[in-house]
């Protein structure tokens, strides 16, 4: 067995043991101030559903940005789907990101376009052929319960519906991992539950889901793995855990 193959096998074993996401003693220090993330080690397995909770400034958003390879770690290594993100070349980043779906608190939809165009946009920019787009978009819109609203402009939709469009856009390219940064932050309790139920269904179908949230009620009710962060470090990581009140 050659050296290269041995190294490849080691990495495969590493991913098998540690999961689809693995942060190995990772720190991130911005040019000014204290480290946003301070030596955390975290593994997330394939098909897991994980809540990342913590106060503002605890490092949750930095963690998401590291996973997206928007930032690179100051120290340690971030592995996503077996790839060391620090070794990823700039031109390889777009292809890497196609494995990830991202949903934000503020939806980030294109308000000058309708629902269909917003979702099709995600396929178009990764150069999916037109006939596939015409097949995939209605399917994913039906999955998120918006089949009847494909022509509506996003401004005409409720917050919950807008977040469903964002989810459809994140999922249409069939990502292995879905990262949701405060997906219910702008929603009322009813819509928040609907979105969380949808995320749970997406997870049931095999997608790894990582949700950053402040929503205590939902975290406590869903009995998923809960990773709690405080000032850049992980203070608890429990399967079926609860939102820890830091006060």
């Amino acid at each position: 067995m050659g050296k290269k193959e041995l190294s490849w096998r080691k990495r495969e074993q590493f991913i098998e043991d540690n999961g689809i996401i693995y942060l190995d003693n990772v720190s991130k220090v911005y040019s000014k101030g204290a480290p946003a993330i301070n030596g955390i080690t975290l593994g997330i397995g394939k098909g897991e559903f994980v809540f990342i909770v913590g106060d503002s400034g605890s490092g949750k958003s930095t963690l998401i940005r590291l996973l997206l390879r928007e930032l690179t770690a100051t120290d340690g290594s971030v592995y996503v789907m077996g790839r060391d993100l620090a070794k990823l070349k700039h031109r390889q980043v777009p292809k890497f990101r196609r494995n990830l779906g991202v949903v934000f608190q503020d939806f980030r939809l294109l308000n000058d376009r309708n629902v269909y165009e917003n979702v099709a946009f995600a396929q178009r920019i990764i150069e999916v052929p037109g006939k596939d787009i015409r097949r995939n978009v209605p399917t994913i819109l039906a999955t998120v319960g918006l089949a009847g609203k494909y022509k509506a402009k996003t401004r005409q939709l409720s917050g919950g519906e807008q977040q469903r469009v964002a989810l459809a856009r994140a999922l249409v390219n069939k990502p292995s991992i879905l990262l949701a940064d405060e997906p219910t932050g702008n929603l009322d309790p009813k819509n928040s539950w609907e979105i969380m139920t949808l995320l749970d269904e997406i997870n049931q179908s095999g997608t790894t889901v990582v949700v950053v949230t402040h929503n205590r009620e939902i975290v406590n009710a869903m009995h998923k793995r809960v990773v709690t962060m405080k000032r850049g470090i992980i203070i608890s990581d429990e399967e079926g855990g609860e939102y820890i009140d830091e006060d």
Partner: protein
Amino acid sequence: MKISTLFYTIRQGFVNIFRNKWYSLASIATIAACLFLFGLFYSVVMNFRSIVMKAEEGVSVTVFFHCEKDMCESHTEGQIPSDIRIEEIGQLIAGRTEVSDVKFTSDEEAWENFRREKWGENYEAYSKGYLENPLEGDDSYEVFLSDVSLQSALVTWLESMPEVRKVNHSALTADTLSGANMLIAYVSIGIIVILLAVSIFLISNTVAIGIAVRSEEINIMKYIGATDFFVRSPFVLEGMLIGLMGAALPLWLIYGIYNYALTYIAERFSILTSFLNFLPVNEVFGVLMPVSLIVGVGIGFLGSIVTVRKHLHV
């Protein structure tokens, strides 16, 4: 690049222009104004150059040779050339690069030309009193130049020949025409450089505003996994389209104005056309059109690529 991506890029290029229509219009108008000035300037310069070149074609140097004392009224001491040597000198002159044409005038022809000029068609009757040719021995070469700025060098070379008695030339005409040519060239380069710089700055600003307006969309594209090329190409195309439109508009205007001006001058000032040769529109546009389009698209490309690289960190 896939065909669908190419169409997407083209469509987005137009969408950028329409979404940002006032800035785009301002850019198109300014580039159009710059290239309109350039086009007008070019048309005028080309015509002026053509007129100057015509004038240059008329500038000539006349070379006289030494001749025997009893044959030649304007005799001075010097080496008298044989007919063969005069022919050789004619060939030497014709072989020089700055010379476009050489015409030999014998003393007989010179006398006939003089009489014809002085007395018109009835010169024979008026010049009956002249029993001998007063210009006898005054064989000469009339030398026409392809570049008048080289006249003094030619004159110095001609005067250095022992057989040459006199070289007639007008230093003032040559210097004026040569100076006018140089002035036109320098002013043209200066104005064109300034106009190009202004145009690049304007396109760069328009594209920068387009990037700012679409920052949210660019951000989303980045998260979804769009390549640098995919994100940047519509903005580069936007710049090129603005440049193209900014070039096409003044070309269309100048074409109309130029044709109108030629017809107007021919009808109202026909006397001008007898000594000023204006270039036909096709001759001017044969160069102006490709140059304007290339310059328009080129500054569009340059302005946008610089801005995209500076402001669009994918």
